[in-house]
Every structure is written in C-alpha cells, then in structure tokens.
C-alpha cells in the first residue's frame, strides 16, 4: 500500500539534492523504519535494498530482523520514534467526508492522548507515544471515518541502536498488529485510545472492524 502523508518533509539542506529532484522521507511499515533522503531517482535502491528486504504483514515476527542500505545509495535509515500510529484518511479531493472527519478525529484523539502524555504530532519526535497522521485515500470512504492503527512490539533489549547511517544494520522493532477500523466517530476516540491503541482490543467489532493482521498469532483478515 502506498500513501501520501502529512508528515513534514525533513530539512535536508545539508544533503541538498544536486539534481533538483524532490527529496523527502518514507515511513516503511510494518518495519517501523523511516528512510531519509528519498528522491525519485533513488527509488530503485529504496525498493531493492529496503522495501523488498523488510518484513511484511504476513511474515512472522522474528527478534533478529534488521535492515541496512549501502551508503553510496544516498539513503539513510532510522527507527520511527513512535510506538503506535494512528492514520486518518483525510483525502478531501476523493471524498468530502474524509476531509471533514479527519481533522475532528485528530483533535479528539489528541485530547485523550495528551492526558496520557502519548500525543505526538507530525513534528514531535520524542520517543514513544502515538504518532497521529493524515494520509491519502486508502479505500472505503462510504464507511468513513477509516482509522488505521499500527501497534509495535515492546522496547528492544537495552542498548539496541535506533539509527544508523546505513552501513551498519538497523535492528527492527516492527509492527505486531494493524487494526483497521471504520465508521469511527468522535465519541469513539476515548475507548479506541484506552483499548485499541494501548491493549490491541476492539470495542465495536461488528460495527467498526474492517480488518488487519496480528503477526504474533500469524492471522490476517484476508
């Protein structure tokens, strides 16, 4: 799945791209890895060294997974700082409802997450917490609002490296679950934080569960 997100484009002024191409970062899931300095011409390296070698939703969780990329590719990798992600479809040019619901849900999620010091907006890279991002259309707007929750495995053993320039391998702390909900309303946000984000449970499975995966139990909805 390929999405655009409102995650800010990092400031790469020191690594200015000589070819005047756009340069940005890509968050790779379920690996929970941020690839920096991605440009259109570096895309083949991104795919061959990182995407194709990264774990996928149907692969089992292994404690020793890692990723690396040759320094000459120009790409850099680091671990995503957040433990959980909430992705809100906010693609208003595809469906007006997504453009309406996403900002309202973000505000309500923010209110509940702040009470637990778990809120991280797009610029907030403090470790842990919940990154809340707007993303482009991922299907099913007739069931708006769609909310995708990614939950990561617990913290790694002490001393694990969380970033690398690429030459060394980056140990992964991957997503163990993805819970895809729909028909989410503002009044659902509190229990989604309390039970779905923090515990991996679903509060209204019949009404709101569209699908997802659990890599610890090796199950998917498809």
């Amino acid at each position: 799945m390929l999405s655009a997100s409102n995650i800010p484009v990092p400031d790469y002024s020191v690594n200015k791209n000589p070819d005047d191409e756009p340069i940005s970062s890509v968050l790779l899931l379920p690996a929970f890895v941020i690839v920096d300095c991605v440009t259109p011409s570096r895309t083949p390296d991104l795919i061959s060294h990182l995407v194709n070698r990264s774990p996928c939703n149907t692969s089992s969780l292994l404690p020793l997974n890692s990723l690396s990329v040759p320094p000459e590719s120009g790409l850099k990798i680091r671990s995503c700082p957040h433990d959980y992600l909430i992705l809100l479809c906010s693609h208003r040019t595809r469906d007006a409802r997504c453009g309406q619901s996403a900002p309202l849900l973000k505000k309500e999620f923010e209110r509940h997450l702040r009470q637990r010091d778990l809120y991280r907006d797009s610029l907030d890279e403090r470790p842990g917490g919940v990154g809340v991002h707007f993303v482009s259309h991922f299907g099913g707007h007739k069931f708006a609002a769609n909310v995708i929750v990614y939950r990561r495995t617990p913290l790694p053993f002490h001393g694990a490296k969380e970033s690398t320039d690429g030459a060394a391998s980056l140990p992964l702390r991957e997503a163990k679950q993805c819970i895809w909900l729909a028909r989410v309303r503002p009044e659902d946000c509190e229990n989604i934080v309390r039970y779905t984000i923090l515990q991996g449970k679903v509060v209204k499975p019949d009404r709101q569960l569209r699908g997802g995966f659990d890599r610890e139990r090796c199950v998917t909805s498809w």
Partner: protein
Amino acid sequence: MPSLLPLLITPVTQKVAPIESLLTSLLPKVASGPPPLFEPTTPAKDGPECIQDCSSCDITYPEKFKINETENLYGTVMPWERHLLVATGKANWISNFMSEEGSIGEAIAKTHGHMVEKVK
C-alpha cells in the same frame, strides 16, 4: 465439530472471522467458527467503560455526514504486504497523488507498481 487446535499453529496467512456479537465471547468456547482476529472488549474483563461512548466529547460531525451503516464491514480491505507513507508535509493532495509528475509517489508507483492496490 469445530477444530479445537490452538490458533498458534494455524498457517501464517490464516484468515479469521469477525466475532458475531459481543455476547459470543461470554459464551463457553463451543461457538462455531474461528476465533476473532482481535480480542473484543467485554464489560466483565475491561470494565463498564468499554460499552460507553465518551461522555466528555463535544465534537460532532456535520449533520450531512452520512455513511453506509448497514453493509458488512469485516473483510472489506484488500490484502497488503507493506505500507509506505511518503512525507509530503501537506494534506491537500490531488485526487491521485501518484500521478503528480516528478514526485516520489509517482516514482515508487512506477518502480513498484504492486504497492498500489486498487482502492474502492
């Protein structure tokens, strides 16, 4: 007779069913069908809050916010293997951001077309 084998030994891509209702999980484990994909909350285990919507929420959707309330929801997502989120620093994307000429999204879609699932 449904299989009583633990879920752990089922194949990696085992598809599981949604739960039929909240009550199912309260019944003895003789119910038919595979176990739920995710554990449902139950008042007995998770407290009465799990069946109450947030009472302090003062945000509401616009009155005209109408959605499909009846169709079956579970299993309506396409399989996906990995998810790439391109940082764009904005949310006002054109209808198909992957068609934006010269963009990273376009390059990934071209190099790795199968990342792009058909979305409804």
